[in-house]
């Protein structure tokens, strides 16, 4: 029994190391396919549309909701110290530095990352990837690279949008519902959030998450078992692994660079 569990642990560790290594190699292949001709702008544009434009509604709505509730909660806490004017600072800092990139990445993983994995995995199941290979077209170049690149490009933009809507939500709740002066909300926001550290840090986090989710989603799809069960396992796997990785990596980035 005990031996068995140690065996299992060893198997899992070896498996993890194997996949990390395979994913790194996969990442290099994708990078090479992305930077070398031929450049597939048309396919990239299609993917950017899929990942970005189709995620707009969910990102905007979630952003506004998160901002509103954060405004409400922080008011309840701050009003006890008579510091309700600092809602702008609190919401602004927490959104820009943490919640924006993390929430956006989680939302995009659920909305677009899973779809990416499912699409690639079902292309594999229906032999479309092999079909491309037989036409001497590398699927990494034709299918994977545009998808991963789109994720990388779109994440920072959606992040900015998410944060903007969150601030808007908090502003509306604060001024219309809680009677805070709009001017002082904006002043506290403006004085506390600075560009070099907070905004740039947010941008970097979003880029890192975009790369991560893009690679994970495409890797899981590309290496899925070519069966229906394989497609669903790969899709679930993407959501779970990407979500956990986002939170872990977020901590690591914050701890290392203080963003």
């Amino acid at each position, binding site marked *: 029994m005990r031996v068995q569990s140690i065996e299992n642990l060893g198997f899992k560790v070896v498996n993890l190391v194997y996949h990390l290594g395979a994913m790194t190699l996969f990442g290099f292949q994708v990078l090479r396919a992305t930077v070398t001709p031929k450049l597939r702008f048309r396919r990239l544009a299609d993917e950017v549309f899929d990942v970005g434009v189709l995620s707009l509604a969910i990102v905007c709505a979630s952003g506004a909701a998160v901002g509103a509730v954060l405004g409400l909660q922080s008011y309840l806490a701050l009003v006890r110290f008579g510091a309700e004017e600092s809602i702008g600072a609190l919401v602004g800092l927490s959104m820009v530095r943490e919640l924006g990139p993390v929430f956006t990445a989680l939302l995009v993983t659920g909305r677009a990352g899973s779809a990416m994995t499912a699409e690639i995995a079902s292309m594999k199941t*229906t*032999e479309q990837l*092999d*079909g*491309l*290979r*037989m*036409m*001497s*077209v590398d699927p990494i170049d034709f299918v994977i690279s545009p998808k991963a690149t789109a994720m990388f490009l779109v994440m920072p933009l959606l992040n900015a949008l998410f944060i903007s809507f969150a601030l808007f939500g908090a502003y509306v709740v604060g001024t219309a519902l809680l009677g805070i002066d709009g001017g002082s909300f904006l002043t506290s926001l403006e004085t506390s959030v600075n560009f070099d550290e907070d905004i740039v840090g947010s941008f970097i986090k979003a880029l890192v998450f975009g790369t991560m989710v893009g690679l994970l989603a495409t890797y899981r799809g590309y290496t899925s078992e070519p069966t229906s069960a394989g497609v669903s396992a790969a899709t679930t796997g993407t959501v779970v692994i990407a979500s956990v990785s986002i939170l872990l990596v977020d901590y690591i980035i914050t701890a290392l660079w203080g963003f």
Partner: protein
Amino acid sequence: MSGARFGSRIGSRVGSLIESRTELRVGSRVDEDERGVETAGMGREDAEEFRVTLDGVHLSFGERRVFDGLSVGFLRGKITVVLGGSGGGKSTLLRLIGGLQRPDEGSVRVAGEDLAQLSNRDLFRARDRIGMLFQGGALLDSMTLFENVALPLQEHTDLSPDDIAAEVTRRLDAVGLENTEDLFPRQLSGGMVRRAALARAVVTDPEIVLCDEPFSGLDPINVRRIENLMVELNRSLGITLILTSHHVQSAFRMADRFAFLVDGKAYTATPEAFRNSDHPAVVEFLEAESDDFVHPHAAATDGGASPG
């Protein structure tokens, strides 16, 4: 494939896929002489004639051993039908020839190049001379038929968009799919998908075409249509055709040669030799197949959807 080479091949057979048999046989230097060989390997046949040879191929998936010292050759410009039971490795054999699967051991020579030794990059180049028709068609379902058939041309030739459009239309017409350019694969029937996939597989004029179960799940009329298209391709362009099937009737109509897979090995034979074979597995296979067609309307279902 370079634009120049492609252009010249186009030029050499302007018009359609349908041209007289004799004319093109000359062009493809096919030996008319049928020399029977009972078993695998080179035997008495001239090694020159083999366009695809597998030699001593071993392949296992985990515990399951698929090929155990498989040696088989496929003649240039002939139609070879690969028969064998389900799970006998028919599709895997095609995947080996297409370079989609590497053997554990042994060589897979296509047009003189050993695919087992090539790097991934060289494999992509080597596949220029091979076209493959997958069982489910493997058309890209996010693209229209036009885009699907145009893709190999856009990727590998210097043809102008106008020329590509003309060529794609011509190819789709040749397989009886007029005015379907803007349809997506999901809007087509199984037979149409198979025909479109065939058009795509041969659009760059490969010299070897692999077809994985081209008749499975099709009605008799579509089976005949695809059969005729394939024979036409073979006769008019001298394409070396290797197809897997467990549809014995249509196999006997088309095949110049048979390859029978059993126990991880292959036996090749001419149709006559195959029909008269006393190999127990072949006898059993042919008997089991003919049973499926013993009923009053045998003539009507002749060439029907493949059993099993």
